[in-house]
């Protein structure tokens, strides 16, 4: 304790040095005077009295030095001296300081922003109670299997939620009905996640059973926006899809699960009597909490063991391979698994960027160390130890890196905001991303490491000076040659890294370009789309829905500027479709295997025409196909026809939904459409796609033949004003005030959203690559300028001896081109190996795409030549008279 106190006092002693020095001198003086007086009293004469007193006191300076050492901490004092000196040196070279600090700030700032992202998404634990015990299933399950598992599992408590369900919200606090995204969850879902409501309560056991489940929990933002933050809302009822539900709770502001769009939660309806819904449709993700003492392995084992029990409970025979591959993963991993490789690649890229920055600053320091050689030699001659010099130089570089980190941190806040807005909004956990203590620690570590990285080599080199040579006039030459080899390798390394980054960016951009220009199978311009969603109950009266849509289409078609209009139960790339297990004429399924699954599009006759999906064979739909008296007719896509009837004509063949008796007849074959994504027509587990007219035989889900209530309207127009959707909304409102219009967006908007992920990765990576290229150019410029300055004398001699000036220009440019070529060579090899890591992010372009590699090489040489053009021109203009007199 006392020792600690002593240390603190010593620490404070550093800051009151002058005062204390003065104090000690006064004390010594008093001491001497008293001693002299005593001696005089003892009979000595004045001179010997003083002499004796001085001798007795001992060396005054030694005492003072001892005292000083005791008073404060010499190590710290030296550090402060070094810092002060470093600051003065930097202030004397503002240009150097600015370039170095800015370079480092860019590198450290970009790394900090990127690390914040990685930290928030990948590293921070989920914001739930005891998150390590939460797991999720890799496959989705319908309600029935979920209930079987929830009841039988001994190792976990299981919950389920839908991915997202949209609701019409009307009634209290709502003028016009709005479409709200919510989720249906099992009653125990909230308690298994371990989240508590802001007010009210979560669902209780049994509240997912029919009759008990007319309940809803609101998100904080919906409560604020629609109900004015009124706490009295709890216990009151709101209207969702035309049905009344009691509000029982409000969740805290940051809770938006399963998607960031989620605004409310209702209990699942686990109704065993609704066989199709219970066992067939609505596949849901499963989350579970491991019971105490249970390992993930045990839980996985149990999950596999539950499969036969699920099959035994099923309403119909299940294929043997159902859920065969389903297993459990930690919930965090399951949530972020898809973005992990992307973030890691971006973090790697930004790390390389920092390396380039370090190389640049190291080069600056090297150049400066050469010009400072005399100063260092002088200090060595005056007795400064080598270690003392190295320490001084390292302090200088640490000061640079700390300044860079401070500036970089403030840049990181903007960078992070930009990153977050560039990434798609549905990036998991993006809302959890913030600068926290771990990020700050990361930045601090980065500052120290970079300072040492770029400072160590120049410092070690500079401290090893040859005194005699350095102090002689013109002695810089020897050091210059030595430092130059190292700085050349730095530049080569820099160019190599820049080449890797630019090639990576090139591949991503090319892949994005291929993706965006890939033919989706339909024409996307000048089409406005909107989701029209009457309540299901409205459509349960036979024919009411159909006549509503018939009227709507008629009115919209009559609008000025409308060239065509149609509806469909979902759009390509929107993620909305029905999957129909089907029987296919002449296609036998081996027992225990999956039956064919068909993607269903219910459309009105104009759909093909508006989307410009080519009709390859047969006929399209006509108005007659939607009339009450119509036959069951369908269209299929080309690849579906080839899949089920290879080498035959599919026209006139038949299929049917498995649970119905009547067969549909294929009357036409149309072109393939990218339904699932821009790279895939239909998902792997679906075998084909068919179109059915929006008429009496329209099929939706697994129920009886029932027209879907929710449809998407498509409207082709050349009128930009119509594309905003305002007119459309008022037309719908005129027809039925209770029908909300949502997802108003152009079709090209949907297509653009489909590449949002790849586009964001490509743009972020490209920015990093552009920064790398800029830093590389600055580095080349610096080194070539420096070399020209060093070679002024030599160039002067060459010119004096008759070298022509363009030859001098070429000499310098050649030097730069050689450096760049060496760097590019290494970079190409490096890129060949490193870009394989991002193969999963590429579409339609190989990781070793020769065109990209070639283009990047040319670009880099051009940049190197451009960067060295100014110094080369300076070399060309060297005046031999001045140059030879120089030094």
């Amino acid at each position, binding site marked *: 304790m006392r020792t600690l106190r002593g240390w603190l006092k*010593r620490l404070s002693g550093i800051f009151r040095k002058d005062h204390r020095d003065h104090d000690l001198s*006064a004390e010594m003086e*008093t001491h001497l005077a*008293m001693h002299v007086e005593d001696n005089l009293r003892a009979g000595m004469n004045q001179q010997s009295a003083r002499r004796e007193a001085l001798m007795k006191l*001992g*060396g005054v300076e030694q*005492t003072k030095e001892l*005292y000083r050492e*005791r008073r404060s901490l010499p190590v710290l004092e030296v550090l402060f001296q070094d810092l002060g000196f470093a600051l003065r040196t930097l202030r004397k070279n503002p240009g150097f300081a600015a370039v170095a600090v800015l370079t480092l700030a860019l590198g450290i700032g970009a790394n900090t922003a990127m690390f914040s992202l990685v930290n928030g998404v990948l590293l921070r634990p989920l914001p739930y109670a005891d998150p390590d015990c939460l797991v999720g299933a890799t496959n989705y399950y319908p309600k029935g299997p979920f209930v079987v598992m929830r009841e039988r599992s001994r190792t976990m408590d299981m919950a389920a939620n839908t991915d997202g369900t949209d609701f019409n919200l009307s009634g209290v606090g709502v003028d016009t009905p709005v479409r709200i995204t919510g989720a249906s969850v099992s009653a125990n879902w909230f308690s298994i996640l371990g989240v508590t409501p802001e007010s009210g309560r979560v669902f209780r056991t049994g509240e997912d059973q029919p009759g008990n489940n007319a309940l809803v929990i609101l998100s904080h933002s919906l409560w604020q926006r629609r109900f004015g933050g009124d706490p009295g809302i709890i216990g009151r009822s709101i209207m969702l899809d035309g049905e009344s539900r009691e509000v029982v709770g409000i969740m805290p502001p940051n809770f938006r699960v399963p998607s960031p769009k989620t605004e409310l939660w209702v209990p699942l309806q686990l109704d065993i009597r609704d066989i199709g819904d219970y066992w067939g449709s609505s596949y849901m993700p499963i989350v579970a909490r491991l019971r105490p003492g249970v390992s993930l392995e045990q839980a996985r084992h149990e999950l596999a063991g539950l499969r036969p029990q699920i099959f035994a409970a099923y309403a119909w025979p299940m294929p043997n391979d159902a859920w065969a591959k389903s297993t459990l993963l930690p919930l965090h991993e399951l949530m972020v698994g898809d973005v992990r490789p992307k973030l890691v690649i971006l973090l790697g890229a930004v790390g390389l960027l920092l390396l380039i920055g370090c190389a640049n600053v190291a080069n600056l320091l090297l150049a400066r160390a050469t010009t400072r050689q005399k100063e260092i030699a002088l200090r060595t001659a005056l007795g400064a130890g080598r270690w003392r010099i190295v320490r001084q130089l390292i302090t200088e570089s640490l000061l640079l890196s700390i300044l860079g980190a401070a500036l970089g941190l403030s840049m990181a806040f903007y960078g992070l905001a930009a990153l977050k807005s560039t990434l798609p909004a549905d990036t998991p956990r993006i809302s959890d991303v913030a600068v926290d203590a771990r990020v700050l620690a990361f930045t601090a570590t980065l500052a120290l490491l970079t300072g040492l990285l770029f400072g160590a080599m120049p410092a070690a080199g500079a401290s090893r000076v040859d005194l005699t040579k350095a102090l002689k006039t013109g002695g810089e030459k020897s050091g210059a040659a030595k430092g130059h080899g190292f700085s050349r390798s730095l530049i080569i390394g820099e160019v190599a890294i820049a080449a890797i980054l630019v090639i990576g960016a090139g591949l991503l951009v090319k892949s994005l370009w291929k993706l965006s220009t890939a033919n989706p199978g339909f024409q996307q311009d000048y089409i406005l789309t909107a989701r029209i969603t009457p309540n299901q109950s409205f459509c349960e009266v036979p024919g009411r829905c159909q006549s509503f849509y018939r009227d709507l289409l008629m009115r919209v078609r009559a609008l000025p500027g409308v060239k065509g209009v149609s509806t469909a139960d979902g759009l390509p790339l929107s993620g909305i479709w029905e999957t129909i297990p089907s029987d296919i004429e002449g296609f036998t399924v081996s027992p225990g295997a999956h039956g064919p699954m068909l993607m269903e599009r219910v459309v009105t006759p104009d759909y093909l025409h508006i989307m410009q999906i080519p009709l390859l064979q047969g006929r399209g739909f006509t108005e007659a196909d939607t009339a009450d008296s119509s036959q069951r007719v369908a269209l299929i896509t080309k690849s579906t026809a080839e899949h089920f009837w290879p080498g035959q004509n599919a026209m006139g063949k038949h299929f049917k939904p498995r649970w119905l008796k009547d067969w549909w007849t294929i009357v036409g074959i149309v072109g393939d459409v990218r339904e699932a994504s821009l790279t895939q027509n239909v998902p792997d587990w679906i075998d084909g796609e068919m179109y059915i007219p929006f008429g009496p035989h329209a099929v939706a889900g697994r129920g009886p033949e029932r027209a879907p209530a929710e449809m998407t309207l498509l409207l082709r127009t050349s009128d930009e004003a119509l594309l905003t959707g305002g007119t459309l909304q008022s037309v719908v409102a005129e027809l039925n005030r209770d029908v909300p219009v949502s997802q108003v967006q152009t079709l090209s908007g949907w297509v653009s959203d489909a590449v949002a992920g790849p586009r964001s990765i490509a743009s972020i990576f490209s920015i990093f690559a552009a920064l790398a290229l800029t830093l590389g150019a600055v580095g080349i410029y610096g080194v070539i300028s420096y070399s020209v300055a060093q070679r002024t004398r030599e160039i002067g001699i060459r010119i004096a001896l008759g070298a022509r000036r363009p030859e001098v220009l070429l000499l310098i440019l050649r030097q730069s081109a050689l450096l760049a070529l060496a760097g590019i060579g290494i970079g190409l090899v490096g890129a060949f190996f490193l870009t394989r890591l991002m193969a999963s992010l590429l579409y339609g372009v190989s990781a070793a795409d020769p065109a990209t590699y070639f283009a990047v090489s040319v670009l880099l040489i051009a940049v190197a030549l451009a960067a060295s053009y100014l110094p080369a021109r300076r070399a060309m203009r060297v005046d031999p008279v001045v140059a030879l007199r120089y030094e």
Partner: protein
Amino acid sequence: MSPKQDVWQGTLALMVLKTLEALGPLHGYGVARRIEQTSGAQLIVNYGTLYPALLKLEQEGYISSEWGQSDNNRKAKYYKLTRAGRKQLAREAKEWEQTTAILERFLAPGEEHS
């Protein structure tokens, strides 16, 4: 610092504390003279070495200092024992007595054979 010097420093500190306890507030010169007299001029070679020791004691809070007037009207820095210093003195003195007692027994001639 060698171990021997450490022992010396500890001893010197103890003597300073004892001096201040015996004589009350005193300036550095007075402390030096007193120690010299008591030890028979054997201990302090240079008065100067006393000042870092005084500083250390002050930093540790065992003594405090204040500028004041000496008997013949000279400005001098006076050192005074603090409460912590008094406690420390008692503790150190006790430890010292124990140590010397042990050493005495240890070094007494012939004892080990009895």
